[in-house]
């Protein structure tokens, strides 16, 4: 029997289908009873799927879709089979005439709209390009942390103030640069933020960074700079604080984690 922590350690491997059958059975037994592990597995499975989406496309046989539909309907699972709408030969000629007339009108109107839509598309594409550039810069910063050889990763768990909350802290032990990701936190007002604290061996609480905004799922992240060497850390905590942060924790503890 695997413990909760042992199952948790194996979730990335399970998301890649890289565990043995015996291990899988034991893990599935645990997953059926542990919402935290089940949620974490789903996140890893989404990541694995992103890899699967990336292959250069290979064209399936042209009739594969037809064969799948035929197999679906042949198995008697559709009480009233739903045909793809087809029109009979007798109605075909009238239908074509109506279609041609409608098409002429559509083309005339479309030509007028086309020029203005091109201008709008150009503006939209410029905005997308600027947004992508900004995102690329953020990814570069994040990837810089994640590619560290001595990456230190620790989980954060929600307290009673945010039972659905969780998070992770990533720190490059050599540079002290890192980031914190959070999810499932209560919504923040404009005047508030979430502040990460590290508790050192001497009991001092030192600020590492602020999450100023979260999305409607309570997701957010912030880049951090570890104020003291990782070897001196004992615990983490996240509290809700004013938007610009506090010199010491004043709000309720939202997330916590130990080394």
């Amino acid at each position, binding site marked *: 029997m695997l413990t909760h922590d042992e199952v948790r350690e194996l979730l990335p491997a399970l998301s890649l289908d890289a565990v043995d059958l015996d291990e899988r059975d034991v893990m599935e037994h645990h997953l059926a009873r542990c919402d935290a592990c089940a949620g974490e597995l789903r996140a890893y499975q989404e990541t694995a799927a992103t890899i699967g989406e990336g*292959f250069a496309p290979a064209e399936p046989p042209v009739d594969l879709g037809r064969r799948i539909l035929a197999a679906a309907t042949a198995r008697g699972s559709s009480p009233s089979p739903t045909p793809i709408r087809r029109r009979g030969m007798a109605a075909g000629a009238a239908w074509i005439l109506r279609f041609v007339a409608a098409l002429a009108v559509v083309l005339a109107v479309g030509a007028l709209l086309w020029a203005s839509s091109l201008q709008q598309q150009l503006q939209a594409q410029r905005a997308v390009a600027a947004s992508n550039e900004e995102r690329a810069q953020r990814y570069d910063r994040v990837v810089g942390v994640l590619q560290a050889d001595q990456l230190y990763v620790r989980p954060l768990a929600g307290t009673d103030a945010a039972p659905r909350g969780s998070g992770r802290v990533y720190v490059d032990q050599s540079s002290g640069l890192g980031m914190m990701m959070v999810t499932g936190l209560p919504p923040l007002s404009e005047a508030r933020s979430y502040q990460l604290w590290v508790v050192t061996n001497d009991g001092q609480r030192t600020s590492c960074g602020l999450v100023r905004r979260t999305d409607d799922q309570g997701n957010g992240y912030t880049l951090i700079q570890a104020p003291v060497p990782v070897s001196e850390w004992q615990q983490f905590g996240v509290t809700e604080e004013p938007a610009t942060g506090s010199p010491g924790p004043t709000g309720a503890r939202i997330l916590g984690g130990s080394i």
Partner: protein
Amino acid sequence: MVTTLADDGGLTLSDEMLAEQIARREVSALETLYARHGRALFSLAAKMLDDRHAAEEIVQETFLKLWQRPETYVPARGRLLSWLLGVTHNRAVDRLRRRRLELRHNTESAVVDLAGGPPDPLDEVLAGMRGEAVARALRTLPDAQRRAVELAYLRGLTHVEIAVALGEPLVTVKTRLRLAMQKLRACAEIADLRPDQC
């Protein structure tokens, strides 16, 4: 009312809406879903198995699983495309493992080249990857971590088999898989945040 591919080309319906229609036994929804994702599933299966015929069977099994047991997809647990890719991957892994078992039984040598094959198929993923953030993270994974992910995801090796193939301790392989997936997950999650998020 039945919405067919001819009506809207599937452009206005989300995957999750199509899944609801499939649960109501609307064949046209299955047709639309295949038109939308059949190629992605086939590409993954064909790449993993290097066998178009086997890939066709797996794609068919995947769509028929959704058709016959639509309740197995739960929208709250993630995207339908991720579910479809997961089923395809799982079935392809089963085939790869059966192949290796047969190879072991049919060959006089007890040694099977677990890690054989193209030098680095993940390069292909990087070239065509839609998830830009994950592609960037994959590029920057240390070689050892990237190799472990490749052997697990593309070759269907278990972590024990990866340890054997690479001649490394099992605990090392487990750690590499965990670190690699943590990094990829972090990048994927950040990519999902809105641009004004940070």
